[in-house]
C-alpha cells in the first residue's frame, strides 16, 4: 500500500506460496473461505498443496512466537464467473475469530456503494518507501461515481468494476496487495465492496483506481459456500 500507514484490518489475510513467501492478499468472508483475485493463481484447478493463508498478525513475516498468528493451508480454489477475476479459496480448517481475526460482511446483491463513501484498502504489499513494509498498511480512498469514472477512463469502465478517486498525495494499492480488500464502513458494519486487482501503475494521482465490484458476485459467493 503506497501512501498509507500501519493499521489493523482483521479480515485481511496474507497468501503465502510453498516457500512461505507472501505474494498476494485476500479477505476472510467466512471462517473457512477467503476471497482473492484470479491473477494471483496459476490455474482454476491448481494443486495448492503447500500454499497457506496467514492471519491474526500485523506483521508480514512474524517471528515464531507471535501469539495470535494463524497459518491455515488452502485446500481448494474455485474460480468466479468468467469476467469476474475473482476466486474463492477454501481453507483446511475454519479460522479462529478473535480480536485480531474477524469476518468482513458481504454487501447485498447488486448493491452500489454511494459515491464519496470513504473506504479502506489494506495489505502487506509494496509501499514505495512511504511506510514500513514489514507490517500491514491501510489507506483510505473515496468512492468515485460510476459515470464520472467512466468518463475519466474514456468509456472503458465495466459494470463489474468499482472506482475510487485519485488522491494528490499518491495513495493506492501496489504489488503484493492484489486480492486484498476495499472495505467500506456502512451502517456500522465493515463491508467488502471491492477486491484489489493488478493495475499498471501504483497509486496514480491522475487516474481512478479500479476494483472488482463484489456486490455483482455475491450470489455466486454464497452459492459456492453453500455447495
Amino acid at each position, binding site marked *: 500500500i503506497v501512501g498509507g*500507514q*500501519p493499521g*489493523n484490518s*482483521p*479480515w485481511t489475510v496474507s497468501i503465502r*506460496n*510453498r516457500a*512461505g513467501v507472501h*505474494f*498476494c492478499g485476500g479477505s476472510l468472508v467466512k471462517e473457512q473461505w477467503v476471497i482473492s483475485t*484470479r*491473477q494471483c493463481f*496459476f*490455474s*482454476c*484447478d491448481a*494443486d495448492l*498443496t*503447500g500454499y497457506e493463508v496467514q492471519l491474526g498478525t500485523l506483521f508480514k513475516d512474524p517471528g515464531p512466537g507471535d501469539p495470535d498468528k494463524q497459518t491455515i493451508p488452502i485446500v481448494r480454489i*474455485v474460480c468466479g*464467473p*468468467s469476467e*469476474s477475476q475473482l476466486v474463492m479459496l477454501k481453507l483446511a480448517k475454519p479460522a479462529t475469530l478473535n*480480536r485480531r481475526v*474477524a*469476518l*468482513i*460482511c458481504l*454487501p*447485498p*446483491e*447488486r*448493491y*452500489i456503494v454511494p459515491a464519496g463513501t470513504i473506504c479502506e484498502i489494506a495489505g502487506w504489499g*509494496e509501499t514505495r*518507501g512511504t511506510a514500513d513494509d514489514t507490517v500491514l498498511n491501510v489507506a483510505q480512498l473515496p468512492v468515485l461515481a460510476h459515470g464520472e469514472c467512466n468518463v475519466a477512463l474514456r468509456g472503458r469502465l465495466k*459494470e463489474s468494476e468499482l472506482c475510487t478517486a485519485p488522491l494528490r498525495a499518491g495513495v493506492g494499492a*501496489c*504489488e503484493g496487495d*492484489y486480492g486484498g480488500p476495499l472495505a467500506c*464502513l*456502512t*451502517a456500522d*458494519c*465493515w*463491508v*467488502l465492496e471491492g477486491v484489489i486487482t*493488478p*493495475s*499498471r*501503475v*501504483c497509486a496514480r494521482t491522475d487516474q481512478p483506481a479500479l476494483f472488482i*465490484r463484489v*456486490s*455483482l*458476485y455475491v*450470489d*455466486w459467493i454464497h*452459492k459456492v459456500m453453500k*455447495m
Partner: protein
Amino acid sequence: HRSPLNDYQRLRATQLLAAHAEPPPPLPERGSAEQCAQHCATSPPCRAFHYDRQSQLCQLLPWTQHSPRVQMQKNIHYDLYQKKDYLRDCIVADGTSYRGTRATTEKGLRCQHWQATTPHDHRFLPSPRNGLEENYCRNPDQDKRGPWCYTVNPKVRHQNCGIKKCEDAVCMTCNGEDYRGAVDHTESGTECQRWDLQHPHKHPFHPNKYPDKGLDDNYCRNPDSSERPWCYTTNPRQEREYCRIRICKKRPRTSNLTTTCFRGKGEGYRGRVNVTVSGIPCQRWDAQTPHQHNFVPEKYPCKDLQENYCRNPDGSEAPWCFTARPTIRIAFCFQIRRCPDELDAQECYHGHGEHYHGHVSKTRKGITCQPWAAQAPHVPQISPVTHPEAHLEENYCRNPDNDSHGPWCYTMDPRTPFDYCGIKPCSGSKVPSILENADVVAFEQCGQRDERLQRKGR
C-alpha cells in the same frame, strides 16, 4: 548419518498382497520406519516391509512388487518400503547389488537358471545371501562390465546383460527439473539424504508440500530451479551437492509457448513485456546489477532469458523479473494478460439463461456435466424433484436458481461441485444494469472491529 531408509523406495498408502502365501505377522515391538528398515536390513529374506504410521507396527516381507503372484493394492494405513536394488532397472557402480528381474542378455539371449547346470555347468549356485535367483542377470564375480548370466544357447556360455548405469539410464533435459531417474549419489559419490527426512540436514522441500517436484526417496532432483539436479547429502559437513546425470542429446520439444498472454504459471511465456506490474523497468538477465542473481542466461538455455523480458525460470506464481530499482529485488509481471482457459461458447442465452433449454453439457473448462438426476459425484441440492418446472433434462446446462451469471451444472469432477457452462449471453440480450436501481439496504452484523467503534485515533 546415513539413514537405513536410504536403501528403500517408499510407496505411500500401498500394500503388497501375495496370492500364494500369508504375510508374516508384524514384529511385536513398535518403532519408527527407520527402525523397521534396520530390522529388514538384518533379516536376509526381507526385501520389503509395510510400515503403519498410526500404530507404528512393522511387517517384514520376503517379496516385492516384482515377485511372481504378488499384487500392489491401495491401503491408507500402510506405507510400503521396498529395497531399491530389487526395483531399479539400472545399476550402481558395477551392479554387484543389482537384484532386478532382467533375464535376457544384451544380444537378446535368454538367461540360464542359476540353479541349472545345463547347458553350461558352473559354480555360481544360488544361496540365501548371494542374490542369485531364477535366471535373473547378476554380477556374482564383480565383473566391471556389470550383471551377466549364462545363456541357454549352448554356443554362448555367458554374456553381459547390458544394463545401463543409473546416471546414463535416464537422461535429463534443460536444467533437469523434469528428471525422475534413480541416481541417488552426488558428483563426488556421496550418498543423498532422503527428501522425507530432516537429518542430517533440515530443509524446506517436504515431498508432500511439493507434490509436483517428484521428491521421491533420496533421488537427485531439481525442485528449486538450480542449474542441475542435486540433493542434500548424508555428509553433515556438506549440505547439498550437484549430481552427475547425462544430458539428453535431443533438445526437448518446446510446447505451450505464448507471447501475448501467459498460461498457468507462465513458464512458457516468451513475450516482450519488460516492466513489472507496477511499472518498474526490469533488470537485464545478463546483468548482475543492481541485483546479483544465479539466473545467468547461458546456464538456463531453455528459459529464453533474453534482454530484460519478464520470464518465469523457477516455477514462481507468474512471470517476474529482477527490477532496475535497488530497493525492490523481484516483482511479478501480473499485468500480462492470462490466456483464456475457457472453451469457446457454443451457444448463447437471453437474460440470465433461466429459459435456456439447449443441449450444451460441458462447463466452460470443458468438464462434463453431472446428470441432474444423479447423486454422484455430487449430491445435488437442486434436482428434477426439487425443481420439476426447470427442464432439468439429462446433464444439459440449466439455470434453475436464476443465477445471475448464467446456466450452470454440477460437474463430473469430484473437486468441482458446480461450474458455469460454455455459453455466453446473446448479443443484444438486455439485462438491467446493476447501476440503474441502486437501493438503500441494511446489513448483517459482522466485520466489527472493537477499536473502530470508539473512533480512537491510530
